[in-house]
Structures are given as C-alpha cells and as structure tokens.
C-alpha cells in the first residue's frame, strides 16, 4: 500500500463546491424574496433509515440498496461521527454512494501522513517544532480525503496516548509524527500489528520509558521500569477489571469487580519489556534519538521466566523479540480487549453511553470479523458506525444518546463546513496557547484529555451516565472555546477585509448569498452542522433574529449571526 504525501494546497474551489451542494439539496435557487419558512425537509432527526424531505429533493444518480440510502440528515450525522466534520458536498456524496460504497471508498483512500514532510524539512536544514507537526495534522484533518481513517486515528490517539507535554517528547516532533502515522496507517489494520508498532515506536518508548529499560542490576537495587508494562495493560488493551463481552464488569460473589492482574504481573511484564533502545545506536547509553522502531539489545534483556496474568508463562531464556511477541500475544488474546477497546472507540466516535448490547456487538466483531480473524479494526470501525444504535440511537433515547463534541471537533467542524483556506498553506492553530486544553498529541498525561469515565456532577452523574468531554468543558473553558469560535466566525472569513496570508479563513460567501431567505440559510446550517436535528424553537429564534438585519453588506451580517447562534447553541454542541 502506498502512502500519500500531501501536495501543495489545492486552489480555492470551496465556494463553487458549496453551491453545487446547495443545488443538490434543492436550495441552490433560493429566490431573494423567498419567505422564511423552510424550503426543505423537516428538521427533527429520527431514525437514519428514514429518508427525509431533503433526500426527496436530492438528485441521486444510482440508488443503492434501500437500507444503504441515508437521508441527507442521516448522512450528515454519519459524517459527524466518521470525519472531522460534514460538508454539504460530502453529505450529498454519501447519499449518492450509500454507506457501503462510501466506506469502501474510504478504505481505499491513500493514508495522509505527516512524518515524511517533517523529515523533508529537517533534511533541508529547517527547524522542526511541535507546531509544525500540528500544522501537518490539521492539514490532514481538514483536507485529507481519507477522513474516516484520520478520524479513527484521532480516536486511537486518545486511547493509545503519547503527549508532547513531556520532557522527553517535547523536542521530538518527528518521532511523534511517526507515532501518529502508525495510527493513521494501521487504523484499518489489525490490533495485534498496531499494538506492536505502538510498543516499538521510539516516541512511545520515550514517553512510557520502555526505551532503555534495562535488565535487573540487583547490586544497585535496579529493577526494570514498570511504566509501559502497567499502562499497556491498564489503558491500551485490557483495563483493570475483568469484563463481560458487553463491557460490564464480571462480579465476584460479593458483587465486586475482579482485577485483571496484580502487581506481580506488572513486575513480570516490566522484565519482559527490557532490552530496547533507539535504532542504530552505537552504544546502549548514547543511542541517538530517531523515529525508527526501537531495536533490541539482547545483552540488556532479562531472560528470567515471567508469570503473567491468567497463569500464562513467558519461558526463560528468550530473546527480547520473543518475549515481546509472547507478551503482546497474551494481551491480544485476553477476552477484555474487544469490549475494552470497542467501548472506548464507540465513545470517541458515536456516543458516551453505549448500551451493553452495542458494546457486545462491536466486541464480537473484534473477536471474530466473520472470517475467523481476531482484531480486525476495519471490521470494528464498520461495526461501530453501522450499528443500529449508532444510526437509530437518538430516536430511541433522545435524552441521552450522543456525546459532547470535543473542542477540536467543534473547531474542525466549522473549518471544514466552510472550506477554510490559508494563504501560506499552513494551518497554524496553537490551541493550547489559546486556552483550549486540547491539541493533537498534547494531553496532560497518558490518561488523555479526559477520562472515559468522567461524569459532570449534577444531572448527568445522578443519572449514572458518563460524559467524558465535559471534563474539559469547565466554566472557563466553555467561554474560551465559545470566544475562539466567535473570532473565527466574525473576523476570520474571506470577506472580512482585515486579514493576511497567515489567517485561516472560512468562506461565508455561499451562506451570505442565500441570506435573503433566512429560513433556507438556517436550514442549511441545521443540516450541515447539526445533522438536521435543530429544534423548531431554535430555528425560530435564529430566523427571527437575522430577519431583523438588513442585506446592505451582501448578507454577511446575517450569515455571521446565524452561524454563531446556531453553532454555539447547546443543541449543536451535542452530537446526537
């Protein structure tokens, strides 16, 4: 398989594409004097199999099998889960292709990477910093054709965490980019291969200190480093408690969860993971930093017998490679991996509180993709996105199904929906500096930006639900992110006039062009940004408000206010 090295920025074509989308959904010819009632479909989101009003207005070419034909609203919701944000063009494309063909196309898209570009810069003698890694990340997230792959990699990066917020990694953007590229390349591969690549990546090695983890030196009271051994179990694979296939804990007769391992297992695995260092090192102590997979040093490997969980024994006398393979095999075949990983991927893509049945269906696919293969992540991703709960969950549980959009997804959704461009070609978005509490590969610790178990005190916690993203939606952060989006909407768009080549600019021209029809304008926003789930009350407030604004500026004031009010509404912030 080849990998795409991103080419120079494509030329501006967003506005045209947006108009094509408008035509396709039946409002390309909205007359300036059209009234404020919706020209298109009902707003309420229901079961995704129902073809709504927008769908009827669309111009599908080939109709795939019925249950594969999403309504426009359903297509938008699907893309909210499966990409860095729906665009009108992609919504229409998904409807025309149907889910299966769209997914197949995504599978075949060439992965967009970032490390090769950084290496080129470094080879040319240019400085390479974390912000450059992030520029590549944003370019791929916003413009990569492999949207699903990028979105799944982003989800995986929040489970298999490394962070630039670490003394050993802050100066290694190239190694970190290689780490992310592993997630991108293997997000549709097999988990067994992924966990091995992750384990041997040098940035992960430095982050969880398996790199230069030496065999015991009892004379100096030195015993192997337990960091990676602990977190690979606790966070990357099986978790702390034995799980049923549906993700609920197995309980002992006293009703308590049963630990998956104890401290002796951590100690044993720490021994198994000894003897790895940067590739091509001339000596153990002075091996030089690079992005290649770590290489083994048999003389620094502990050869004792290791007793790990479930009575599994890693025999003594084996090489670093054989110990590693035995340990990762044991982890891979642990029955927890499917429900543990599956549930978190569901949380990252679809909903914070999946039902046990949903988790079980996904975990079953992890255990067997239907062809006897365990760990097939492509099958898992499809199972997550195509599950009846993903597509019909909101209709069945309108009060609790879904998730809070994380800050990066709120920002990327805006930038993608309105075809953000930047004169320099560099999407420089120093979000931590802006106060966001989220940046690609920049969590506070290996525990990610938020815990999968976080529950905001109050109604949500009292209902026994979790809402992880609320952990970074505090009283201060909620205002910071709202203000950041405000700046982007009002001051960082193409027709603002006070911008320069460094500014990332969204294009509000298409919205302004339909501003004479407030109802149509708001319905377009409801479709693209809210999966067609805008309540009639919200629609009325926004339509009434922008109707009071005149059109002397070509409709931009209406476009800005409508976009701001819709996108910062509680309804739009919750993905459903």
């Amino acid at each position, binding site marked *: 398989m080849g990998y795409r090295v991103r080419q120079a920025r494509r030329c501006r074509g967003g506005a045209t594409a947006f108009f094509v989308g408008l035509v396709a959904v039946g409002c390309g010819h909205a007359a300036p004097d059209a009234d404020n009632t919706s020209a298109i479909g009902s707003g309420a989101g229901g079961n995704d199999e129902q073809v709504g009003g927008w769908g009827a207005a669309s111009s599908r070419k080939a109709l795939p099998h019925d249950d594969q034909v999403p309504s426009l609203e359903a297509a938008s919701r699907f893309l909210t889960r499966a990409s860095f944000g729906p665009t009108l063009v992609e919504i229409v494309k998904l409807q025309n292709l149907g889910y299966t063909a769209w997914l197949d196309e995504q599978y075949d898209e060439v992965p967009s990477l970032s490390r090769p570009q950084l290496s080129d810069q470094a080879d040319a003698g240019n400085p390479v910093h974390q912000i450059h890694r992030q520029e590549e990340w944003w370019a791929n997230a916003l413009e990569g054709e492999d949207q699903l792959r990028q979105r799944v990699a982003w989800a995986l990066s929040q489970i298999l965490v490394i962070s630039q917020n670490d003394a050993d990694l802050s100066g290694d953007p190239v190694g970190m980019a290689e780490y992310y590229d592993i997630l991108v390349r293997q997000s549709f591969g097999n988990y067994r291969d992924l966990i091995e690549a992750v384990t041997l990546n040098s940035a992960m090695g430095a982050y969880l*200190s398996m790199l230069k983890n030496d065999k015991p030196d009892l004379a100096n009271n030195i015993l192997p480093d337990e960091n990676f051994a602990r977190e690979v179990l606790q966070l990357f694979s099986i978790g702390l408690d034995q799980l049923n296939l549906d993700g609920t804990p197995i309980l002992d007769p006293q009703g308590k969860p049963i630990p998956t391992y104890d401290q002796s297992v951590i100690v044993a695995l720490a021994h198994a993971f000894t003897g790895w260092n940067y590739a091509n090192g001339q000596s153990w102590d002075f091996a030089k930093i690079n992005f290649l997979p770590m290489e083994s040093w048999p003389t620094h490997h502990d050869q004792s017998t290791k007793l790990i969980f479930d009575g599994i024994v890693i025999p003594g006398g084996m090489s670093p490679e054989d110990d590693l393979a035995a340990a990762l095999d044991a982890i891979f075949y642990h029955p927890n991996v499917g429900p543990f990983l599956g549930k978190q991927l569901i949380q990252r893509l679809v909903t914070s509180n999946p039902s046990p049945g949903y988790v079980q269906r996904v975990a079953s696919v992890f255990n067997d993709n239907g062809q006897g293969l365990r760990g097939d992540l492509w099958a898992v991703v499809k199972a997550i996105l195509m599950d009846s709960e993903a597509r019909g969950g909101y209709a069945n549980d309108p009060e609790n199904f879904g998730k809070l959009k994380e800050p990066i997804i709120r920002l990327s959704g805006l930038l993608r929906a309105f075809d953000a461009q930047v004169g320099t070609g560099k999407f420089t978005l120093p979000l931590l500096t802006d106060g966001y509490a989220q940046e690609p590969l920049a969590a506070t610790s290996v525990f990610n930006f938020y815990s999968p178990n976080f529950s905001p005190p109050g109604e949500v916690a009292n209902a026994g639900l979790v809402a992880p993203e609320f952990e970074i939606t505090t009283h201060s952060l909620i205002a910071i992110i709202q203000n950041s989006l405000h700046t982007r909407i009002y001051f960082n768009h193409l027709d603002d006039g006070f911008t320069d080549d460094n500014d990332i600019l969204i294009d509000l021209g298409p919205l302004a062009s339909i501003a004479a029809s407030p109802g149509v304008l708001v319905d377009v926003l409801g479709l693209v940004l809210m999966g067609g789930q805008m309540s009639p009350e919200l629609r009325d407030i926004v339509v009434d408000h922008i109707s009071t604004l005149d059109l002397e500026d070509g409709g931009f004031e209406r476009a800005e206010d409508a976009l701001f009010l819709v996108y910062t509404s509680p309804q739009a912030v919750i993905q459903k």
Partner: protein
Amino acid sequence: MNRKIDRRKALRYLAGASVGAATLSPGSLARASALSKGSRLGGYRALVCVYLQGGNDGFNLVVPLSTPEYGVYANSRQQLAIAQDQLLPITPATSDGAQYGFHPNCPELQSLFASGDLAVLANVGTLVAPMTLSEYNSGSVPKPPRLFSHVDQMFQWQATAADRIDGTGWAGRSADALAGANGSTDLALNISINGPTLWQVGQNTKNYDLGTNGSIALAGFGGLDGPARKSAFQQILDLPHAHSFERQYALTMQESIDLDALISAALAGAPTIQAGYDTTSSLAAQLHMVARMISVQATLGMTRQIFFVGLGGFDYHNDQNRDQPGLNAELSRSLFDFQTALAELNMTNSVVTFTTSDFGRTLSSNGKGSDHGWGSHHVITGGPVLGGDIFGKMPNLALGGPDDVGRGRIIPTSSVDQYGATLASWFGVDQTALATVFPNLANFASPNLGFL
C-alpha cells in the same frame, strides 16, 4: 530554638482561637474539636490543595540526614539518592532521634519550616485501615483497591475511604457539611484553578472552575449589534433542552456567564498584590490567582473557601535526576511566594496550604527513575500550622524492611483519611459531620494528626 518558636507560635495561635486549656500534644482530639467549634463563628478560612500530579517522590523531598538513617536511605535509593552534604537541615520540635533535611532545591521550605510556618507529614497514603507488612502479605487487613494505579490512587487520595468511593471527594463533602457558610452567594465554596477534581465534588453543593487568569467574559455582545445578538443567544440558552447533555452544557454556560459577572466585578476592585511570583510557573500563576480571589473574599461574601491547584510532571519513571530538582524548586518557591502574598493581604492566619499526590515512589531505581509507590511525605504551610515539626511516623526506608511491600513501596504510617480530617477539622467541619465526611476515620486510632 525552633522548638521555642514553635511553642510560642502555637500558644499564640491557640490563645487567638479563644481556647483556654489547650494542650500542646500533637493529635489532641479535644483541642481540635474546640478549635473547630470556635471556627464556625469565626472569621474567614481557606484551604488550598496543591496537587502534585503523577506521584511525587516525597522520600527525596524530606530525607534522613543523620548518618545511620541516611545510610539506609542511600542504600535503598542508590543513584536516586540526594547527597548527604547537600541536604538542607531542619530541626523538628519533636525529635524521633534522627535528623532530617530538605531537598537541596527547597531552601524556601527550609525557611518556612524554621519560621514555624510549615510542617511535614511523614509517610501518608491511602489505607483502608492501619496495616503491617504481615497483614499486607496475608491479606488479613483489606488493601486499598488498585494500589499503584495513578488514577485510582488519585481518586482515593481525594475521596478517602479507599474501599468505598462514591463519586464524591472530601472537600465536596466538607462543603456539604458547611452548607450555608457563605450565605446565599451563587459562587461555590469549592473552586478549582486546575480543572475538575473529584476532591471537590459533593452530594449537594456545586463547584466552580476558574481560569488561571480569572473568569472569562463572552465576546460578541458589545457594540451596536451586541444587545440583539445577546438576547437571541440567551433565548437559545433558555430553551427547554430535550437532551441531558444539552442541559448540562447550557447550565455550565449560564454559570460561567453569571459568575464571571460576579468575579470580574470583584477582582476589578482587588488590591494589586506586590509580592512577586514566577510568571513562567503554572503552579505559581495558579496560586497567584488564589491569592487574588482571597483578596476579595469579603466583597464576594465568602467565609469559607477551598481551592485546588496543581502541577504536573512528578511521574519520574525516566530521568528523575534531571527533572526532580526543577520541580522541587518550583514547588518550594511557589509555596513561599504564596505565603508572602498572603502576608501582604493580612491573610496568613486564615489560609492553610497543603500538598497531595497520587502516591509516593519506589525507593529502588529502575535505572532511570522510580516507579509507582505508596506512602510519601507531604508538607502543610500557613499561619495556623504548628510548623517546625514533623508529624506522623517516619517509615523504615530499608528495602526488604518492615515497611516495604516490594521495591521500596512503603506502607503508609498515616492515612489520607486522617490527613483530610485534620484539615477539615480546622476548616470547621464539626465532630459529628467528620464521621460522614471521612467514613473510614474510625478505622484509625487518631482522627487528628495534630499539625493544626
């Protein structure tokens, strides 16, 4: 000398609290109880928790200095040991026979200790009940669940009662117990400047998250067009939201707006704090924000406040000898500068600041650093603290010794329950409520460790 100062200081403090027949013996329940009752009617009090994220290596913060004890320490720690001649000596009011010193990068802690404004709590950690090594090995006394796991041990530190965590923390439950202490203000008793923390979650009281630079006003509602836009925004916020997450989001947004109005107005009238602080330090900046909030407590109508701040980087698996000096220096300077700011605000005797973490670290090295341990030393500072002394019991630091469960993971000799209860008592949680706030407190012989 220090002992005298300490005694005088203690007497002064006790007299100030209108306690007649107080004894000076640490851990005196009677005294703590009397103080608590006095405080309920008394003036402003604040607790400030400094959370050292990742599991701080307290055994390198306070180190045995006298030769036999240092020898045991150095033998266990090997390359992680601090050189004996670099330790900053302290003279505790109560001697256990050994001498101790602070990490060489902590002269400010040494100074606060000497002036009687800082106490050391030895070897505190999570416990269900006191336990010995043989009880640990036999399982006859229940262990805290999920020992050595970051997030679980952090939760147990913050919740206490390690075996029955229920989604609340002891600061939150203390706020429950003191409901009404701050009158009818909308501002929560519990404020975090380091994101949400289980510690501050109560059953019935809310908490508030403040930015390091203060509260944040929403943009876009000024100018000619602002009011109409704001009105539409507010109408949307006020809609009856169908989804529980929408309601949670709208509530947080509304609180953010309302409390920003309250706090920014109060801070506009705050005195400028002259005391300097390291503006490059996240911890120092957070503590500076706490000082600013304390400076306007009267304006805000606050009688009792609990603040949470934090600093990351203490998970020293790798390069401990490179990273520890800087972080210890940052901690030491930040605590000292905060005390200086409080003195300037005349709040020295109203605020108690204390450190917490996930756990201590292994005494033994992994060749580069240390791994997840258990018990660890912590410090408490402020005017009310019976400073210049070490409280609790110093552990045996020998590998394979009577306190080591393996690799130098040391069984705590005081529990986080006792640590919290001592602080909460001073804060004003009365004897009856204490049993609710700290459900396992009765498992331990002394409910008060005596440093306040």
